[in-house]
């Protein structure tokens, strides 16, 4: 656990702080040693742990699926190939159901979103203290750092930058395909819709832009909110371990129950992110 000298608030705050590398207010670049320092860096900072886990899990996805793709045969598939093909077929079926148009991008995009988000969410099921605690010990003994300055969050999707980055990517694709499919007529969607009269152009513009911007926001915040809340509950349950034996054992059962329930949530959130990505892209492919 997090050590006896910490208060519960400290413990929770420590758990919610990323490992940050960025520009200090004095202009030098380096790691933040506290939440305050991290906050002072503002925009010019990067969450090293989020990025490392996110890219690492993305590489796991690429490696797994590339391995299946390169070894795949049209004959009788083995267990591994079968599993990968099952996922691909599931994603392909969802794309076929929701996306009405022809695109070489949407299938691979949906697959990447689904598997990658799922893997990132899956990190939530690793006991909440395990890897941060190991990182703390590693930082303390191997790198000679103050253990209280070692911050390590392992669930990238509880960092709002990660879902927001993906949502922005999807948003860029929505705009791109909107113009590609509809040409300059895409603008008409914003100024002459839903009220097809020149006098309503400002009203239309306001409503449509709000509607457009709501899409990436809802996409990012839904995933972030769910994963952050889930992580928070894991952390809160974990604070029970320092409150005596009976509460500790009770907390252990709570942790187990929440983890089992969380299996559903992480899969569902990955699925929802994928489906919304497909639906949004389908909408920008549709001609009115």
């Amino acid at each position, binding site marked *: 656990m997090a050590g006896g000298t910490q208060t519960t608030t400290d413990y929770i705050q420590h758990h919610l702080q990323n490992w940050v590398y*960025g520009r200090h207010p004095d202009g030098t670049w380096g790691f933040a040693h506290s939440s305050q320092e*991290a*906050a002072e*860096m*503002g*925009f*010019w*900072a*990067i*969450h090293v742990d*989020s*990025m490392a886990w*996110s*890219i690492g899990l*993305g590489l796991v*996805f*690429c490696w797994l*699926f*590339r391995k*299946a*793709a*390169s070894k*795949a*045969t*049209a*004959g009788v*598939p083995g267990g591994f190939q079968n599993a*990968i*093909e099952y996922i*691909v*077929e599931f994603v*392909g079926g969802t794309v076929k159901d929701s996306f009405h148009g022809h695109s*070489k*991008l949407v*299938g*691979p*995009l949906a*697959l*990447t979103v689904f598997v*990658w988000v799922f893997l990132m969410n899956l990190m939530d099921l690793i006991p909440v203290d395990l890897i941060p605690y190991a990182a703390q010990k590693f930082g303390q003994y191997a790198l000679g750092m103050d253990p209280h300055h070692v911050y390590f969050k392992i669930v990238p999707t509880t*960092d*709002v*930058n*990660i879902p*927001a*980055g*993906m949502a*922005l*990517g999807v948003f860029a694709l929505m705009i791109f395909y909107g113009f590609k499919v509809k040409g300059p007529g895409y603008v008409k969607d914003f100024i002459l819709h839903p009220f097809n009269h020149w006098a309503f152009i400002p009203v239309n513009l306001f409503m449509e832009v709000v509607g457009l911007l709501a899409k990436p926001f809802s996409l990012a915040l839904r995933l*972030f909110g769910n994963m952050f809340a889930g992580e928070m509950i894991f952390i809160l349950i974990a604070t029970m371990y320092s409150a005596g034996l009976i509460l500790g054992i009770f907390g252990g059962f709570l942790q187990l129950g929440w983890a089992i329930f969380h299996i559903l949530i992480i899969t569902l959130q990955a699925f929802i992110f994928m489906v919304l990505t497909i639906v949004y892209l389908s909408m920008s492919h549709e001609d009115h």
Partner: protein
Amino acid sequence: MNINLTLFGQMIAFAVFVAFCMKYVWPAITSIMEERADKIADGLDAADRAMRDLEIAQNKASDQLKEAKQEAAALLEQANKRANQIIEEAKDQARTEGDRLKQSAQAEIEQEVNRAREELRAKVATLALAGAEKILEASIDENANRELVDKLAAQL
């Protein structure tokens, strides 16, 4: 929640992974799945065709069997008929042959009888003459008694 450079880092990583998936993962796996689907469809088609062929062959075989049975029955019937006919013919032939033999035998017998009678007649005449010659011991005029003797012989 603080937005910072991580956002763009994630966007770049996202773009790279999607591009990788689009280039090296998705087409390879989907094409192989389609290939397998085609293969399975072909296999099922072939199985259907084979079943149909089998059914046709079975029908053909049973038809041929039936035909062969009918033919065999017809042949058997014909053979029986022919055998009966042959037997009847043989019987008829045997009967006519028998009749013919009987007739010729009877004719022969009759002929023999007639011949024997003639011989006997000739011999009786001669014997009667000789007897008469002996009885009379005299040389009675043969010519005078000839008529008498012939009359006697004819009565035999």
